[in-house]
């Protein structure tokens, strides 16, 4: 135990003297079966990490193919049909197979019980099932992609998706199955938060990452069934022409869009709320401060989750939706922006009077702050109804959601990976390479997507295979940025793999963090804590000198 954390001995004492006798979860059982059939949330989290990184690679390759194709107008490396399939698969893989499960299923799974002082999530077997459901869905999707692919765009708007001759049904069915995985994870986490908190952890002493995951899980539980139904309806429509959304049979394609965005808009919060949660932890740890405005951040997570549900129509301002609905959705969109602004101000406020240590995760925090502010503000701009008339479905939208939804999430994913790497594997990585690759990725990301904002302003629509000459310069700039980005990821892959194999032992708490998850061993033993459930007398991230620890109530 590091000297700095001597004040938490009260909380973590009961299992301290035992830890030599209990192997870490990584080596407690080494057979393949002990991994594949494990119900340990940490092992399940790691398996999710493996597959999610795999799909991130697949989606990333699709992304690079798209960027290379767009280097020149007209055909560069593929024909139009292949291009249409490529961007569809890029979207589907990145959204359903990477971004939605990325942080909750990996870091949520791993950290949530540790942060709550629980031995496991509430339903460990359901947790394992959710991994296999996810993989089953992924197999369906990949099978559909290999057997003809899908060319509808990930939004699969009717009536195009119900009439295209590409393989809609298997991919839709895959998405439907993955939905169950998402729901299972969500139910598990909500129940865990309600019933598994250790003594001392009241609702307002839960770490903010837990709050974010809780809010995310609420969205997953409430929104996912709708997309599940919708994917089935589209698949059925494509196979049997039932006419539910087919204008030729009286159906309304705009109603399809309502139902689609009822899930898919909250889905962006499924992706980005956990990112917010990770960053709340990271900023506290590296500036050694309690979060500024804990309750404000916690409530704003719930606020985003709730209001975010009723802002879906801002994807449909020019779809033929009524002006009245556009107004309603426009106002609600602004509220989401306010909740996000609260978080941004509070993160910056956390640094105030802190003690900043500029480590790799903190570098990602800086990138995250940048992407969230610009991505968020361009989101507000897009939600400003009349501006959306000009920007809708142009590259401005593409750049916007890559900033807020992808940029913020990737930053948080990488920050979490680096921040919790010693916790998960007990090893350290090379700090210098970490900072270099963080710089590369943040620069590369900007170089990729800032030109796309300008392209959108200039009027280039999204999903264009061919484009007028005047857009070429910016497209070349964007592709150049994408290669920089790819380079950054390659560096990360290399030094993290190296660290995994040959890294130095990290010790229990290399960052001297006072997050709850650091109060167990690193890596933790199979049931997280040895002996009875530990108690947590202090709030998380409490860095006050014990001599003057008289605390006013947090707001």
């Amino acid at each position, binding site marked *: 135990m590091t000297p700095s954390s001597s004040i938490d001995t009260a909380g973590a004492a009961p299992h301290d003297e035992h830890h030599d006798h209990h192997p870490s979860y990584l080596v407690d059982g080494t057979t393949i079966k002990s991994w594949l059939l494990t119900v340990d949330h940490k092992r399940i989290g790691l398996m999710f990490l493996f597959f999610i990184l795999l799909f991130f690679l697949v989606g990333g390759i699709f992304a690079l193919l798209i960027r290379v194709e767009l280097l020149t107008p007209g055909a560069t490396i593929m024909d139009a049909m292949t291009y249409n399939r490529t961007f569809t698969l890029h979207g589907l893989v990145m959204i359903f197979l990477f971004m939605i499960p990325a942080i909750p299923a990996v870091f949520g799974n791993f950290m949530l019980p540790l942060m709550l002082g629980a031995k496991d999530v509430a339903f460990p077997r359901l947790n394992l099932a959710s991994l296999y459901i996810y993989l089953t869905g992924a197999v369906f999707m990949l099978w559909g992609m290999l057997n003809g692919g899908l060319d509808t765009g990930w939004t699969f708007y009717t009536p195009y998706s119900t009439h295209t001759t590409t393989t809609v049904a298997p991919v839709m069915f895959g998405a439907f199955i993955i939905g169950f995985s998402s729901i299972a994870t969500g139910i598990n986490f*909500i129940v865990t938060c309600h019933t*598994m908190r250790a003594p001392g952890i009241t609702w307002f002493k839960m770490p903010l990452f837990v709050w974010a995951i809780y809010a995310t899980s609420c969205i997953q539980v*409430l929104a996912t*069934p709708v997309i599940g*139904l919708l994917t089935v309806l589209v698949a059925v429509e494509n196979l049997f022409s*039932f006419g539910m959304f087919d204008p030729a049979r009286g*159906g*309304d394609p705009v109603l399809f869009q309502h139902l689609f965005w009822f899930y898919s808009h909250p889905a962006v919060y499924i992706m980005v709320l956990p990112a917010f949660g990770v960053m709340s932890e990271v900023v506290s740890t590296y500036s050694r401060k309690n979060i500024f405005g804990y309750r404000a951040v916690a409530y704003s997570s719930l606020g985003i989750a709730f209001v975010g549900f009723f802002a879906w129509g801002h994807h449909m301002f020019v779809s033929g939706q009524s002006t009245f609905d556009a107004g309603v959705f426009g106002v609600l969109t602004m509220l989401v922006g306010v909740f996000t602004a609260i978080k941004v101000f509070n993160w910056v406020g956390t640094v105030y009077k802190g003690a900043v240590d500029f480590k790799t995760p903190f570098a990602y925090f800086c990138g995250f702050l940048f992407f969230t502010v610009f991505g968020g503000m361009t989101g507000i701009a897009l939600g400003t109804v009349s501006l959306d008339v000009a920007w809708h479905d142009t590259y401005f939208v593409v750049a916007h959601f890559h900033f807020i939804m992808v940029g913020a999430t990737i930053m948080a994913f990488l920050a979490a990976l680096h921040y919790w790497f010693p916790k998960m594997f007990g090893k350290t990585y090379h700090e210098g390479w970490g900072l270099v690759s963080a710089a590369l990725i943040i620069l590369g990301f900007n170089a990729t997507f800032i030109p796309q904002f300008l392209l959108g302003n200039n009027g280039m629509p999204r999903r264009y295979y061919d484009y007028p000459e005047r857009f070429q310069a910016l497209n070349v700039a964007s592709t150049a940025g994408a290669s920089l980005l790819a380079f950054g990821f390659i560096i990360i892959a290399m030094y993290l793999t190296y660290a995994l194999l040959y890294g130095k032992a990290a010790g229990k708490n290399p960052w001297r963090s006072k997050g709850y998850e650091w109060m167990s061993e690193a890596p933790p033993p199979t049931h997280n804590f040895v002996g009875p459930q530990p108690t947590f007398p202090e709030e998380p991230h409490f860095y006050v000198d014990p001599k003057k620890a008289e605390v006013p109530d947090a707001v």
Partner: protein
Amino acid sequence: MQSSAHTADGAENLPRLAGHFASLEVQNHAARLGMWLFLATEILLFAGLFVCYGCYRFLYPEAWAAGSRSLDLTMGTVNTIVLITSSLTAALAVHYAKEGENKKVGVMFALTLLMAVGFLVIKYFEYAHKFHIGTLPGRYYHYEGIQVTGIPLYFTVYFCSTALHAFHVVIGMAVLSVAMVRAFRKKDFGPKNYTMVELGSMYWHLVDLVWIFLFPMLYLV
């Protein structure tokens, strides 16, 4: 941290306490909350179809009126009564489980299953009739008797929602069968161990609940 209240009645049938829960009451609470959350997802799943129903009804009131009049109200009403009664027996099963009368639990679930089969049989006759006269969804609609704009959509909604509901009936039957077999074989339900019966029965009530809304929506208005 086993609470003392529970260790006292060791002779009683207690469910297995999973190692990661602090106590039995936490485990029960978790199971119940998990079930409610799952039921919430089911409600939202049907909500998608309710929205389609609501919107298209709003657009095509005449087609909806004509469509609902073409359904067999008698069969629908009988089915409603069957399902409500099966819900009663499911609720009674929970009641007897709490009292530890395992045999009655089994019988109640058997009755529930019997009525579920009855429900499906009636549903089958309704479907068969529709296939016969041609009131089918979308492009398969070929009934000469009603020709109003939007009428195939009514039957699309009808078939999608009743089929989804019937699918849930089948799943519910599977769940209740497991509980029934356990009540007859292991006979271990009692005042401290009835969560499984309770959750299975909650699922069944949800199936009933959905039908309570589907019935007037499709058959009456």
